[in-house]
């Protein structure tokens, strides 16, 4: 359903964020994207809906190459791609309902969105989605009146309001407590299953990824270094993705080794 072919991104500063990433995600599959900070996870996701312009490669959603479409067509294609953000990215001063309806912006002309006169079908659907994520009673509250978990549910409802063909999920649980994180992950998995949606989920919490994802892709310095089943993720693989570390031990970290000469030299400088 989604296929990336040799996707490359080099920023204007010369930093290469992605090196020829190739990846295919079939319908209904939820792929977890793991890797250290700065590995290019966020860039990869943003290249797909072109919030970041890719510098090379093809992005096929169905049979459309998203990397090649023009501005008007890009707008139409973005409607098919729902995105869920780290720290929710709701418009905080708008109501919950307006946030969910903003998922329809690509489908309605400006004056209709300006006067808040969305088609009845969209409104009905928005209520249905709010009911689905358990926030029907909060529809008229301002988004910043909700708790973190509730806001992320609004974010999910907004993405689903687009009736997307693909979900992009960027660190959905980064600022949530462990219990709420699991509820949110479960909700994302459920809606993907209900709608047979493919999804790419950026996630830095490896145990959470192993618990929920169908498949894991490991990025390191802009390259795919692992692509396989969740069960195939072991210490060797973790070391290739994140670098060497004592993955199994949960004991006290040994005190960092230091050279006493080093300390003495620094102290001598301090006195000056």
């Amino acid at each position, binding site marked *: 359903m989604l296929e990336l072919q040799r996707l490359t991104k080099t920023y204007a500063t010369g930093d290469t964020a992605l090196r020829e990433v190739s990846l295919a995600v079939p319908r209904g599959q939820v792929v977890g994207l793991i890797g250290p900070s700065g590995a290019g996870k966020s860039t990869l996701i943003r290249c797909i*809906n072109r*919030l970041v312009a890719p510098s090379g490669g093809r992005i096929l959603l169905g049979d459309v190459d998203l990397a090649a479409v023009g501005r008007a067509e890009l*707008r*139409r*294609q*973005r*409607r098919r*791609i729902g*995105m869920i*953000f780290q*720290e929710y*990215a*709701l*418009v*905080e*001063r*708008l109501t919950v309902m*307006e946030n969910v309806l*903003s*998922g*329809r*912006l*690509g*489908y309605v002309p*400006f004056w209709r*969105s*300006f006067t808040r006169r969305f088609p009845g079908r969209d409104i009905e659907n928005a209520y249905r989605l709010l009911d689905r994520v358990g926030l029907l009673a909060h529809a008229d509250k301002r988004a910043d009146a909700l708790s973190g978990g509730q806001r992320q549910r609004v*974010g999910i409802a*907004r993405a689903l309001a*687009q009736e997307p063909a693909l979900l992009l999920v960027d660190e959905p649980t980064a600022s949530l407590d462990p219990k709420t994180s699991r509820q949110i992950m479960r909700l994302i998995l459920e809606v993907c299953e209900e709608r047979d949606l493919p999804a790419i989920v950026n996630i830095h919490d490896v145990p959470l990824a192993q618990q929920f994802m169908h498949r894991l892709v490991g990025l390191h310095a802009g390259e795919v270094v692992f692509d396989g089943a969740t069960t195939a993720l072991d210490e060797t693989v973790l070391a290739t993705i994140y670098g060497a570390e004592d993955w199994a031990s949960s004991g006290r970290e040994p005190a960092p080794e230091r050279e*006493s000469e080093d*300390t*003495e030299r620094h*102290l001598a400088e*301090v*006195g000056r």
Partner: protein
Amino acid sequence: MNEATPAYPTHWRRPARMLHDRRWRWLVQASVLAYLVLALGSFDVEWARVMEGLSRAQRFAHGFLQPDFTSRWSDIRQGLIESLTMTLTATVVGVAISVPIGIGAARNLVSAWIYRCCRAIIAVSRSLQEIIVAIFLVAMFGFGPLAGFATLSFASIGFIAKLLADDIEEADPRQVEAIRATGAGWWQVLHYAIQPQVMPRLIGLSLYRLDINFRESAVIGIVGAGGIGATLNTAIDRYEYGSAGAILLIVIAIVMVAEYGSSYLRRFLQ
């Protein structure tokens, strides 16, 4: 622990950010002080003139203590009505023109050349002080509140458009990104992602500008742009310090009312 603990210092001072050498710091401080002393010494004060002025100041202060609201009341009323009309219309027109210019001057919304044009308009409006604009517009439109209205509208543009543009540039980019990701067009992004973030600030700025405009209307009246300033100028010219005192007290009262009113409204809007 087989390693001996090294002797850590017990004294710490904040490292100097600039001018690392202590002697340089002394030198810079001493020369600033020397300059100040020399510069202050360059004003030659004519003590005789100051003495003469003191008696005038006394009469002025006296006028303040016994403000005369009645003998020129119809002039004062006329001036006040002119000033308030000019203030209100200039603020409304100024805001209406500032909003599109402010949007155009926000780097995160428009292309580079629109940005530069709008920033240039703002720079022109901000670099010309109200009095200079007023003198020019009085020459153009003649004496009276029309010149004042035009001056205040022009000055409001620089103020509101700049602060609005800066606020738009500081808007949370994640909210903007989220709306853009839904396939929203430029106008929709503006209306759904930017407007909710900057609206309280825009209303606050407009109210603030309203009371600046009122205060300025008292100043530009002196150069002939009508309003309470013209009345004040006439009163001072006629040595009617009682009436002048009354006018200044009214201006102070109105600015205070506007101040409290707008801060109350702003708190209500948050």
